[in-house]
């Protein structure tokens, strides 16, 4: 199973490269593009990124394992991120997190068996004034209660 970037994504990578004086600097953008295409960053995806950018493979590995938003294993189609940091915690974030885990029967970074949902306990997402919050994939849901979260999650199915 060889991973290859799509033609369109290769063009996006080329555009990202132009932002910087070095190819290495485009690695974060490129990992994002790869994750978008492949769902997660496998070893062979990392090899391909290194190839496309002409950088050492370990440079890709070191970056991928540093940043929490890059996933080296498949996540659910809907990746639910629940903030439990202080501002959210003060307004029930921890309880929301436990509720969501229980609902899907998974723990932190767990994926449901059908692969539809994964749950992550995240650090502060910058929504402190609208706490508690969850994010599903790229979208923020703010000013939540347990009921509201359940409604949102019901609508996912």
């Amino acid at each position: 199973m060889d991973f290859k970037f799509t033609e369109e994504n290769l063009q996006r990578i080329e555009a990202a490269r132009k932002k910087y004086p070095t190819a290495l600097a485009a690695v974060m953008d490129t990992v994002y593009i790869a994750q978008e295409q492949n769902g997660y960053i496998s070893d062979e995806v990392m090899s391909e990124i290194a190839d496309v950018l002409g950088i050492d493979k370990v440079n890709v590995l070191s970056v991928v394992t540093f940043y929490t938003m890059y996933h080296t294993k498949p996540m659910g189609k809907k990746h639910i991120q629940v903030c439990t940091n202080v501002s959210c915690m003060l307004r029930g974030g921890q309880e929301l997190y436990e509720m969501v885990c229980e609902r899907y029967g998974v723990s932190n970074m767990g994926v449901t068996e059908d692969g539809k949902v994964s749950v992550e306990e995240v650090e502060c997402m910058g929504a402190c004034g609208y706490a508690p919050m969850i994010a599903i994939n790229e979208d923020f849901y703010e000013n939540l209660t347990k009921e509201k979260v359940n409604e949102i999650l019901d609508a996912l199915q």
Partner: protein
Amino acid sequence: MPKITIDGKELEFKQGQTIIEAAKQGGIDIPHFCWHSSLSVSGNCRICLVEVEKLPKLVIACSTLAADGMVVQTASQKTLDARNAVMEFILINHPLDCPICDEAGECKLQDYAYEHSVGESRFVEEKNHKDKRVQLGPRIMFDGERCISCSRCIRFSDEIAGKNQLTFVKRGDRVTITTFPGESFDNNYTLNTVDICPVGALTSADFRFKSRVWEMSATDSVCVGCSRGCNTEVWVRDNKIQRLTPRHNEAVNSHWMCDYGRLNTFKFVNDETRVDGPSIRREGQLIKVSWDEALNLAHDRLREFKTSEIAFIGSAFATAEDNYLFARLAKHMGVHNIDFARHIAHGDFDNLLLLEDKTPNSLGAELAGIKPEHGGLSFDEIMEAVKIKKIKALYILEDDLAGLGEEYAAALGKLDLLIVHAVNYNKTTDYADVVLPSAAFAEKNGIFVNFAGTAQRLKPATTTLETDRALDGMSMSRWDVFGTKFDRWANGSRYDARPSWRIVSMLSQKFGLKLKFQMAEEVFRSLSEHNKHFEGLDYDNIGRKGALVKNISLPVPEKIK
């Protein structure tokens, strides 16, 4: 020159030097884990925090530039507190592996814990766990729990070896070191990471669990793997070489040596194929005889040939002293066919240390007089002459000519007389009529001259039957000092072998040449008196760092990274 005051000592320094460099130059050792004089500064271990007058916070000595008039305290209460704090942090998750750790005894962490720690831990939690037995490469084992994340190995691979093969992964106290998945940490310099690892995180697969450090003696020596002549230390226990490590010599090899040299240039010394006592061939079999009998036979047989039928083959594996006396004997006998074999592996070199010439002393052999004189034949001509039986007798000094290839072996088969000095039995000794056991590089004193003309000293690290560790002033391990002859560790093999120069001088007596040398040093003194290239050199001024030979023009070697 600008001056800095460290612990009340006024020291001169060069502009651009950091505090730790200025201190080192002035004989003050500021504790450090991540800093290494040949690597970039990473500043991550924090053990070198020192107090600088007029600065509000402690600064790290490894990255802070020394400045004129700067006043530094490396032992103030504030500094000691910070150092203890860092030691405590490093130790909280460090396993108590010392009893089974190869690094114990030469471990910076252990040394500093003894020197700078309070001796009591306040940490009562569970330690973090990581992978403990990772085969990072064919020669390297990694223990993630012992690693203190100093990044020396990563920087070495990238900056010195030029192979960006290692990296940190993960974050915080989960950080560990790895190669890319499925790839191996494999280049010709990986074992240097074991040397520079300040703890026992990286260990040598070859040396792992072989010996405690304090059970070995360490002797200054020179690697015989190629003509770079990397400075080494030979580590011995049970009279067996356990490992080689590089010894710092900025002009020759910096802090490094290659894996090839480290692993392939000492095992023959310990090997069962060692020649133990002289032997002569009778009815097709090599029979052990006394030295006198062997030398008498060598003398008598050599006398059977015209000098034009005899050739002497010196050796780039033997010392300058060995070759010098060998050449003196040839001259005395009137043998002009004298040369030595070059061992050039074309294309087998790199840009760091490894050279194509796979012998340690070809320049030394040549300068000491191993070259055809008065119309004598060169090595290739000698071998051609052997084939057509024009040369009928060969006297070979420490070189396995038959091992060079079938053609050479076949030629040796045609000889009427073959006298060989050998460390190990080999293909050449199969054809020999007289085999004289020579001491290996690790068993004798002597001088090698490397490709760049640096004369460097060998010292005996293991003993032969005729040498004694204590009486000969050799380096001693704790076991050597405190053990008795009844202890198990004293039972290592000792061979009846002698340095080639001694064998040659014994033989020369029989030819009426009085080479009365008791020690290698005397041979070298004679060489320096008689040979313009070695003029003014002696064992003392060659010392630990070597000295350039004279009256010769060689390309200036590039600086080692």
